């Protein structure tokens, strides 16, 4: 067992397996409204694997485009700058940690859940008039702290996984037991290091414990989306479990039963398509 300090976490982030340069640039440009469509298209086009996945997702039924797009520049025009940035970030991140090795860690289940949370957050944001692109990206990145932990401390994380299985407890409880912090704490430090907007940093670090007295925002959105994605069984992991739902966050989202049914339906339809476009 160990006690990870914020400085140790920041060191781990600096030592992460090299994400493609374009992914880091995209991540850092998420809060930058000045970046131009041409700059963005040029950045994405530099990395063939990311460009191919981006086109695959842009052409999937998730976006329902009327015709096939064949270049990143064209995708930028049709999808819009912010959506394309989310899509390319997703494509880049999904491939970026593929070489980390940690016994018991199921990458496929991890990404299936992250994509499910992204789609759920997107579907909720459409109905609650929140920022749909921020919702999608945040859903995709909310568990990023887990990837940092398995990359920096694979042996210790394997023990935390074994502890979780033995105790049948939630993974963030097992992480806290082994590291003194959980993936949400680590994710918040990472998001800060990557210079995400403060609302995104807060949403990542508090996605398991939204503040009781806050107003409705991205933290409530990702907390509820994470719960729904686990509840819809999207990771296909036999021993998956739904974290505890903060009822004050749930009340603030104020989703009607009919909206919930629409969200479940949209996510169930889109999940396989988006996983197919983004995952190896």
């Amino acid at each position, binding site marked *: 067992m160990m006690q990870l300090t914020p400085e140790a976490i920041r060191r781990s982030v600096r030592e992460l397996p090299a994400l493609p340069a374009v992914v880091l640039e995209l991540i850092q440009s998420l809060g930058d409204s000045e970046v131009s469509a041409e700059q963005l298209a040029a950045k994405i086009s530099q990395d063939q694997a990311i460009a191919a996945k981006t086109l*695959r997702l842009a*052409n*999937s*039924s998730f976006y*329902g485009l009327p015709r*096939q797009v064949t270049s990143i520049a064209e995708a930028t025009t049709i999808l819009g700058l912010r959506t394309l940035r989310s899509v390319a970030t997703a494509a880049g991140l999904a491939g970026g940690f593929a070489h980390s090795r940690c016994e018991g860690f199921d990458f496929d289940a991890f990404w299936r859940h992250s994509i499910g949370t992204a789609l759920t957050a997107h579907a909720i944001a459409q109905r609650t008039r929140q920022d749909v692109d921020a919702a999608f990206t945040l859903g995709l990145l909310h568990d990023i702290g887990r990837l940092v932990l398995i990359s920096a401390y694979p042996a210790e994380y394997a023990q935390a996984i074994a502890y979780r299985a033995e105790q*049948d*407890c*939630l993974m963030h409880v097992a992480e806290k037991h082994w590291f003194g912090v959980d993936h949400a704490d680590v994710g918040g430090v990472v998001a800060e290091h990557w210079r995400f907007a403060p609302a995104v940093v807060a949403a990542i670090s508090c996605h398991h414990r939204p503040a009781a007295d806050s107003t409705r925002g991205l933290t409530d959105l990702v907390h509820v989306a994470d*719960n*729904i994605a*686990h*509840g*819809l*069984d*999207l990771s*296909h992991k036999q021993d*998956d*479990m*739904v*974290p*505890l*739902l903060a*009822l004050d966050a*749930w009340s603030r989202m104020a989703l009607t*039963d009919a909206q*919930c*049914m629409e969200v*479940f*339906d949209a996510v*169930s*339809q889109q*999940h*396989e*398509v988006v996983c*197919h*476009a983004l995952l190896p």
Partner: protein
Amino acid sequence: MQETMQTLATTVQSVPPGLVLAQPVLDAHAQLLLPAGAPVTSSMLHNLQQRGIQTVSVQADPSGSGASAPGGRKGSIEETQARLHHLFRPALRMEQLNPLLHLILRYRTTQRPGEEP
């Protein structure tokens, strides 16, 4: 022993929601619209018709009770309930209310408007 599943090619108009695609659905440019294994829903069928897709290939459902794949919505009520109770065990153990348990159970076990039995 591997279970064999009969595959049916059928028109988009006549496929009942709840079945599972046996083959991926591609558009005229060979771009994937839906992967094999995706559960069929009424709005998905509507979208395919809009895109000019005439036929799809689905797995025949020998029981006639609809799909029971993890992402699918139908399945026996008891199986669905048992799986949801397993997933929601942290809240159930602590006797905490999670409205999503009942909402997802209702979603998975109720007929939606526009779906055929």
